[in-house]
């Protein structure tokens, strides 16, 4: 990964994580700025310029550090929050909603993890005994893709070791698991992988690791004792997609023992209107554009309702048939406000 220029907020210039990141890119020029927002997102930068001229910003996340997550985020009935430790991603999935989100594809890393953890602690202490609270990372970036450079997760591990009632989900498409393997498994840390059948992944998940590489990474984490979550999301229709998902599900069931499989979430490809326009502009040759989409009840662009419901039901059935406990399978259903990431 090459960055042309690093922009560093003066306030975090001496932070050890900042210094480590700067060291990782000895050839990049470094500019010190007062606020990330002074440059990042200040003017619209076309999304596909991430291929040739990507900048990296390092700063301090301000405002609400924890946000209440939409229902579709996880198994219902427990409080879910997401937190933002980074913006943007080095991969290029065609359906990614980031392409319409920040008005710039440049990466931003926030380094004030101590403040995020303090908010997590405050929220955790409010949870009644016997209940869990969930924290999800990966809302606006891939959690592990650059973790060997950012090394942020070492800040979070002691917190989650101390509070078993707090659960952490790290959502990824990467196979960059070196850092978290070193930290070791915790029962309340779930590493969740987004998976699609091989063919869909090759066609639409540009620049991401192959399915076999992801499977290998999952296997290594399983052997280490990690809890694994899976996202069959976004599902993209092809003739005989059922057969593709049977193979995929068989493979994951073979690799992940039931006690280490935390959940499987299912969702069908969907776009906000703006993201769909960006997607059309960025990937005019994508096979996905040949599909028939409709503006659904909430204005999002999706397959027709019978179509998307059929896909969800079929893959749900396959999961059950392959032995995944029904309570571990959840559907990102209608009325959701969820996004597709990692």
């Amino acid at each position, binding site marked *: 990964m090459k960055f042309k220029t690093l922009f560093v907020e003066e306030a975090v210039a001496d932070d050890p994580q900042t210094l480590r990141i700067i060291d990782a890119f000895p050839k990049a020029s470094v*500019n010190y700025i007062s606020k990330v927002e002074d440059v990042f997102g200040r003017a619209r*930068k076309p999304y596909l310029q991430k291929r040739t001229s990507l900048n990296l910003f390092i700063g301090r996340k301000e405002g609400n550090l924890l946000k209440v997550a939409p229902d579709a985020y996880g198994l219902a009935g427990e409080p879910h929050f997401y937190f933002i430790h980074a913006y943007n991603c080095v991969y290029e999935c065609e359906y990614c909603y980031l392409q319409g989100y920040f008005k710039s594809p440049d990466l931003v890393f926030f380094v004030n993890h101590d403040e995020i953890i303090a908010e997590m602690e405050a929220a955790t202490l409010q949870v009644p005994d016997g209940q869990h609270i969930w924290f999800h990372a990966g809302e606006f970036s891939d959690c592990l893709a650059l973790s060997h450079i950012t090394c942020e997760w070492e800040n979070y591990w002691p917190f989650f070791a101390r509070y078993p009632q707090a659960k952490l989900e790290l959502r990824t498409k990467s196979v960059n698991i070196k850092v978290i393997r070193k930290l070791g498994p915790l029962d309340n840390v779930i590493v969740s992988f987004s998976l699609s059948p091989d063919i869909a992944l090759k066609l639409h998940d540009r620049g991401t690791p192959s399915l076999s590489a992801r499977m290998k990474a999952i296997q290594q984490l399983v052997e280490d004792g990690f809890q694994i979550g899976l996202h069959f999301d976004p599902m993209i229709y092809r003739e005989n997609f059922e057969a593709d998902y049977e193979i995929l599900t068989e493979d994951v069931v073979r690799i992940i023992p039931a006690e280490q499989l935390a959940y499987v979430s299912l969702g069908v490809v969907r776009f906000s209107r703006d993201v769909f326009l960006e997607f059309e502009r960025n990937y005019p040759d994508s096979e996905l554009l040949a599909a028939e989409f409709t503006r659904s009840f909430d204005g999002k662009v999706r397959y027709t309702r019978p179509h998307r419901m059929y896909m969800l*039901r079929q893959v749900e059935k396959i999961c059950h048939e392959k032995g995944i406990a029904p309570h571990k399978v959840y559907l990102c259903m209608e009325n959701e406000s969820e996004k597709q990431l990692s």
Partner: protein
Amino acid sequence: MKNEGKALLSSGKHQHGKRILLHFAHRGEARVFLEELAVHPVSFPVKGLYENERFLVVISGEGRQNTTETLAAAISYAGMQISEVLNLGVAGSLHYDLKLNRIVSVRTVYGAIDNRVEFKTFTSVDDAAEIDCISTSRRILEKEDAEPLSYFAQIVDRELWACASVCKRFNIPFRSLKMISDRAGEQALCADIAEDALRYSHALFNHFKKLAHQEEPENERIELPDGFYATVAQKRQLTSLLQAVVVKEKRSAKHLPDFLPIDDILKSEKHPKKRTIRLIHELRDYLNPFRRRLEESLKPIFEPLRGNDIRVSPARDYETNALGISFTVENEDELDRKCAALKSFDYVAYREILSGEVMSVNGKSKPAKGEDSQAN
């Protein structure tokens, strides 16, 4: 030198009757173009407009306001018959690794009024371009002023943002070739740049000439085969369906006729209009095989109604469970018959299909009410 400005003028050739508009800020930079292209002055209230059969040349003067006014007037003069705007001129470099006198094609143009960077940016049609430009409202004479601009772009000028903004307003593609004349913030005298203007004009023209002779890609057009008749709306629909086939099949539009079931349709349908309807249907099924499955699943459920001349109209794209049912009656028998048909209609099965629950992998839907009844 890199081939900056790939496929220049490509849009000019296949948009019959349209001209390319060349935009300069200064007469000096335009001089060689005026002579070599043999354009003649246009009598027009806005000065600085020249033309020949293929080109319009406009010299706007420096800065945002001059550019906006003059360019908009020139485009209006041409009755919008402009295939592309090409901005040509000099720019200052904001990055030391950019060599002086190099000609670059601009990728994205940013704008800045005083020190405030505009959110709007414009991207040229040259997808091989790699250099970004920022257009400022005033000259950049100090290093401290140049540095924050370098966060956004590698070169700086005064006009391109306004030029691109006008193009956007008129929905005309633009590109820009800039010659790096100096280092921004190093107090280059305008007089120096003006003295060099003729040299810049020669260099820009030579570059322009080379690019203008490049091979231009043929625009692929999708034609309806003989023996078919389509209304305007159908033509639009067919174009987008065929475009989707091109994307899905990853083949050129030229090879579509071999791929489509044209002969079959010609043989089996006599009427040109019906042939078109059938072609649209086949294409939709091909692009969305699920639709056919769905329609086949719904057929037995609708059969008792349709078989009795009762019209059913599902919600658009089946987004809701609402189902329009309408019919007319002319006598009591007909009313009884239609009421009986309505009674036998299995709305629950309809709703279940829309919820995706009853369609199996092999595409068979749950039998309609009564079909598998074991009740005594």
